[in-house]
């Protein structure tokens, strides 16, 4: 193998570091995309025995958005192994204990079963807020697109924006609101 062929190989198998903003995103839909990148399934050189997965940094995991009644109805089961050791933790309770766990478990479920899960999960880095260690941020060269736009909340609009918002009609001055 010549020197140029060697660096071509190096470039082909280089690990990319992606970053993903989980703000207002469905963790279960996001996990499908993230798990693909962790395994390297998005690459043409992919093979199950080929170690070609990328790293993904997920931030703002505290601000994920679960669909429907998922916060209330989704239960995370754990059993200590002792009699009576079963426990069911609701999603909102788990999120209060550790705001990265819902995202972490969602990705873990998406990955293929087997021992490779441990190695693959080591390439996922989840941070609850916007603070990411500087040495990890230096590696990042790619951003994963958010699956849905972040909606604006009503209180994020300033008084001026509300005033300038186009209106079809306005109440008459002498109209008394109930």
């Amino acid at each position, binding site marked *: 193998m*010549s*020197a*140029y*062929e060697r*660096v*071509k190989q*190096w*470039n082909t198998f*280089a*690990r*990319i*570091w992606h970053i993903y903003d989980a703000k207002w995103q469905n963790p279960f839909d996001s996990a499908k995309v993230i798990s693909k990148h962790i395994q390297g399934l998005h690459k043409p050189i992919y093979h199950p025995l080929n170690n070609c997965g990328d*790293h993904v940094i997920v931030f703002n995991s505290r601000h994920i958005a679960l669909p429907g009644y998922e916060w209330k109805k989704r239960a995370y089961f754990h059993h200590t192994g002792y009699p009576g050791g079963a426990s069911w933790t609701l999603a909102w309770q788990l999120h209060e204990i550790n705001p990265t766990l819902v995202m972490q478990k969602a990705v873990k479920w998406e990955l293929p079963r087997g021992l490779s899960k441990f190695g693959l999960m080591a390439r996922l880095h989840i941070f609850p807020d916007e603070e990411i260690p500087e*040495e*990890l941020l*230096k*590696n990042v*060269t*790619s951003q994963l697109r958010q699956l849905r736009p972040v909606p604006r909340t009503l209180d994020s609009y300033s008084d001026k924006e509300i005033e300038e918002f186009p209106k079809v009609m306005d109440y008459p001055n002498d109209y008394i609101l109930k």
Partner: protein
Amino acid sequence: MSIQKLFSTALQAHRTYLFSIQAHGFKKDVSRKLMELYKRKEDIEFGKTPSPPPPRSSYLEWNYDAELYSFGKRLGEHIEPNLLAQSLTQRSFIVVEEEKQKAVGIEDPILNVQENTPLVDEGKSFTSRYVKQYLRIALPFFPEEGIQSVHNYLLTEKVIANIASHIGMNDIVQTAEYPIETSSLHSCFFALVEAIRQSNDDHTAGNFVRDFVLTQLGGKNVNDLWDIENPEDKLNTIYRNHGEELPEPRLVGASGKNTILANYRVAFYNKDKQMIGLGFGESVQIAKEMAARDALRRLFRTSERDAPIKYNLDINTSQQKKVNPSLEEWNEKILLQATG
């Protein structure tokens, strides 16, 4: 219960080099491995390994004249029978034959075949000339240093002996040593080229060299056969020859900077902001050097996107083509004018 059955576990344990029969199970693979190793040792010590086959010429029904005739026909070239016989006879063979005859009592040994030494030098210089000429026409933008390197590779003992053995010269060459050495195959091949040249003309012999020697470049990258030192300096020299601004290296990509798997992509850009070469590497320095290498091979028309070398060119051997420019005086504009 028989005695053997009673002690079978203990016997097994002994056979498998287990020192305690209280171990969990028997390590079957240990005994199998040891038995296999012992068998191999036995084979070598008692001479059971197969010896190399005896030379084909020692067989009773060996008819050298018939073999020689069919060898010539298999090549598909017209070769004078005496020239063909001469080209495949090494000096060492003649010496041994003469000694044999002297041992029997013949004062002036008679042999109706000559040694190939005069043919070898002639054939080697012809092959060398033809290969260089062909490469200059097939790779008009490749500098002369590169042509020389590719030529040297093609004429090495390993490559030529490989060709010779694959056209069936292993058994037919008459030489004292057995098995035949690569140096004998190397010189006999050139003698064969010269025999074809003397029986026909330069054109036929040239086509023979083209079909057998130059085709060895198939699947090979000519850039790998020529190592350029300081490619960045060479690239700058070429741009100075063109009278243009020196190309500018830029970092166009990087990933995993803080990891041991860091990867950088550096590209060279010319004054028109066009990318002229792209390189990769684990450090910026290596990526830059590789980018310069890529830029050079794009200029020399030997990059991956260029068409491979043609092996069906008809070369006029009487007409000497001008030598390709050397790396120091390489100029694309002059070359483009020359090639039209």
